[in-house]
């Protein structure tokens, strides 16, 4: 239990707090509409569907306020830098922004379903009340109203017998916006399913922009003031006394004709703040789009990997951060994330772009066809945007796990550690680094092996061999690999990477690795950093919990994951 709290305590607390607020809002507004005397006559018409529509509405307001915040990437990196205390734990929460975004979205979907179903019933009941199907009281209440000219104090928003529920919904603000924003929401949800998002990002990305319609509709949704409450009159209208004698309303002093008014629309007050913040975010991205970026160097590496070394005024990066690149010559709308592979100590920032799809293919082709000495295609940069690996230097011992393309952030980290070491930077708390590199085939990452080779050599020269322990795991090997390795068994360097450390075949035995790290560092705080697939994240997270000790003098593992 103690182990679990160390790793998940704050996240769990945030989720519980969020859920608590949701439950509170639901219950509070349910009771408000279920027992409130001002809704006595409204309930006469609508029954339990009234609180069932209004309680989800309150929860929706709250969640629609939250949904935009986790996707303001620049706001998040601003926050990241401004925590005074317990930064590490707080920052880790910010890395789970998309998880939270999804959580909030699920809540919105659920509440929308309840809200919509309840309102379907409400419209039907309003219509039936007017038709006199629910007895004289409901019928009379539906007929109330000052005059067709003023038309302000009525209770039943369906004012004419010639309409039907469908027509009513499509001719009122609340109904029409409700249908439109629900449709927008459904399209957003269906196109953000894992399958679509992972494989056809454009479909996901462009459909997600229906959120503009969603929020505009949401702001105006309440403006129709359809749900109406009874107003205080002088003398007051006595419910229990008058309920049974609607024929006397307005005739005896205890029962003046009840006056009704719509509730003040509240949704816009909830969402306007985040909408403005998000607008600022988009403006900031646009400004970034306009800022000039110049090339320092373009290197085309083997295996079709393109290295861009870029320079931008006022650009200050930290390790493990990423940037969004936009190349207007390919598409003005597409921003693609790339992890930076340079160290903050360098006077430029670099990205390694591997040929993986349309966009990268076009970019590489464009660069290949450049005339000698020309500047590359114009490019815009948004960022830098932060992720957890800035925290690497804050742990005494770091376990870095890179799987496949996920080694990229560690290029920056290892480089930076090297620079910090050379300058004997006092900020460097790290005493020991374990680096695990898992990949199916190393061809695409030759550049990374190059980097490791340089580091290895330099560390050896300085007698710091123990500082970095790295292990390479080749998961996609076959017999020919194995034979090859056997033949060259007694060579000093590895046959695949040319490194001193021999490549291991197959997947790591994590229990063994964690045990070893714990044994070597009996009283340290160990940060485990992963950039790789979800399945591996689950495994490592469990291992971190398993091998941590609540005793403050013993080894503790903290799990961090990069999000892509």
């Amino acid at each position, binding site marked *: 239990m103690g182990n679990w709290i160390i790793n998940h305590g704050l996240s769990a607390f945030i989720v519980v707090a969020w859920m608590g607020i949701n439950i509170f809002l639901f219950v509070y507004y349910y009771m408000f509409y279920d027992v409130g005397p001002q809704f006595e006559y409204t309930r006469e018409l609508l029954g339990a569907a009234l609180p069932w529509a209004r309680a989800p509405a309150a929860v929706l307001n709250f969640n629609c306020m939250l949904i935009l915040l986790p996707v303001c990437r620049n706001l998040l990196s601003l926050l990241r830098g401004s925590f005074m205390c317990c930064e590490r734990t707080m920052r880790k929460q910010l890395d789970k922004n998309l998880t939270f975004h999804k959580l909030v979205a699920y809540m919105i979907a659920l509440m929308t379903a309840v809200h919509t179903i309840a309102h*379907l019933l409400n419209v*039907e009941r309003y219509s039936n009340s007017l038709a006199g199907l629910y007895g004289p009281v409901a019928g009379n209440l539906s007929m109330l109203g000052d005059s067709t000219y003023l038309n302000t104090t009525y209770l039943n928003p369906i004012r004419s017998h010639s309409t039907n529920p469908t027509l009513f919904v499509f001719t009122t603000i609340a109904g029409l916006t409700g*249908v439109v924003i629900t*449709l927008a929401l*459904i399209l957003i949800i269906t196109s953000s399913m894992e399958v679509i998002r992972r494989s056809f*990002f*454009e479909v996901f990305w462009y459909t997600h922009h229906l959120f503009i319609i969603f929020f505009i509709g949401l702001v105006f949704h309440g403006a129709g003031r359809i749900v109406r409450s009874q107003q205080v009159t002088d003398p007051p209208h006595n419910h229990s006394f008058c309920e049974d004698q609607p024929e006397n309303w307005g005739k005896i002093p205890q029962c003046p004709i009840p006056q009704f008014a719509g509730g003040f629309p509240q949704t816009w007050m909830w969402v306007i703040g985040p909408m403005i913040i998000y607008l600022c975010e988009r403006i900031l991205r646009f400004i970034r789009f306009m800022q000039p970026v110049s090339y320092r160097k373009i290197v085309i590496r083997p295996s079709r990997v393109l290295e861009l070394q870029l320079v931008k005024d006022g650009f200050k990066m930290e390790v493990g951060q990423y940037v969004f690149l936009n190349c207007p010559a390919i598409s003005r709308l597409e921003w693609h994330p790339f992890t930076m592979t340079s160290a903050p100590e360098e006077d430029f920032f670099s990205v390694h772009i591997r040929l993986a799809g*349309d*966009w990268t293919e076009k970019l590489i082709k464009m660069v290949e066809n450049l005339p000698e000495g020309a500047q590359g295609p114009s490019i815009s940069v948004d960022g830098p945007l932060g992720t957890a690996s800035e925290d690497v230097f804050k742990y005494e011992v770091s376990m870095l796990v890179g799987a496949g393309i996920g080694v990229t952030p560690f290029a920056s980290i290892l480089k930076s550690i090297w620079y910090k070491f050379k300058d004997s930077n006092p900020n460097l708390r790290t005493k020991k680094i374990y680096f695990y590199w898992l990949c199916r085939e190393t061809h695409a990452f030759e550049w990374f092996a190059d980097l490791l080779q340089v580091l290895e050599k330099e560390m050896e020269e300085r007698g710091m061999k123990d500082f970095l322990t790295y292990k390479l795991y080749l998961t996609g090997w076959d017999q020919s690999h194995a034979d090859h390795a056997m033949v060259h068994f007694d060579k000093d360097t590895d046959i695949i990477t040319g490194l001193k450390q021999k490549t291991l075949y197959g997947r790591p035995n994590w229990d063994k690795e964690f045990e070893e790290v714990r044994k070597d560092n009996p009283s340290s705080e160990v940060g485990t950093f992963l950039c790789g697939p979800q399945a591996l994240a689950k495994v490592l997270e469990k291992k971190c919990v398993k091998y941590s000790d609540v005793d403050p003098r013993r080894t503790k593992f903290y799990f961090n994951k990069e999000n892509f």
Partner: protein
Amino acid sequence: MGKIEWAMWANEQALAAGLIYLTGGIVGVAGQFRDWQFAAFGIAAGVFVCLLEYPRSKRSKGTSVERTGQYCFTVCVKAFGPLTSNYYVRALLHAALCVPGGFMLATVLGCVCLGIASLIYLSAAIHGEHWEPILHRKELSKRIGESIKEPPQNPPPRPPPEHRRKKADHLETAAYDNPMTVTVSE
């Protein structure tokens, strides 16, 4: 990113539309709304669409992801041949199924969603896509060979060949094949 397979999105959208249609239908029938017969149709159409759309198609490129337990649905849907694999047919079918939903409020959302799904399917059909079952069960059969049950013929530790001379009198119980010919008498 590569070519977009519209059918993948159409499938998600249609499945959601089926559920929404079904829900709307249930609300309409349970609440005995005016013209609830349309809602009853909505229930039937919703269930049908869900069953039809549950098995995901194989992707033309890349890994296909199955829905949990879609195998038996896949077999059923596959049985109808071109009727279920052609996306023009699906687009038409959904377009036809969605019309009655437009006549009452409870099923309007289901109707419009299914209509949108139909349009996406139409676009998928125009792009030349078609439904293909994901059937790879047989290849995944356990291939843990027989050998695991049998003891190894030549177990370690194995001395280098030149030392592999056995004591001749234990020839029958020898644990490994001897690469060299062994004679009883020296």
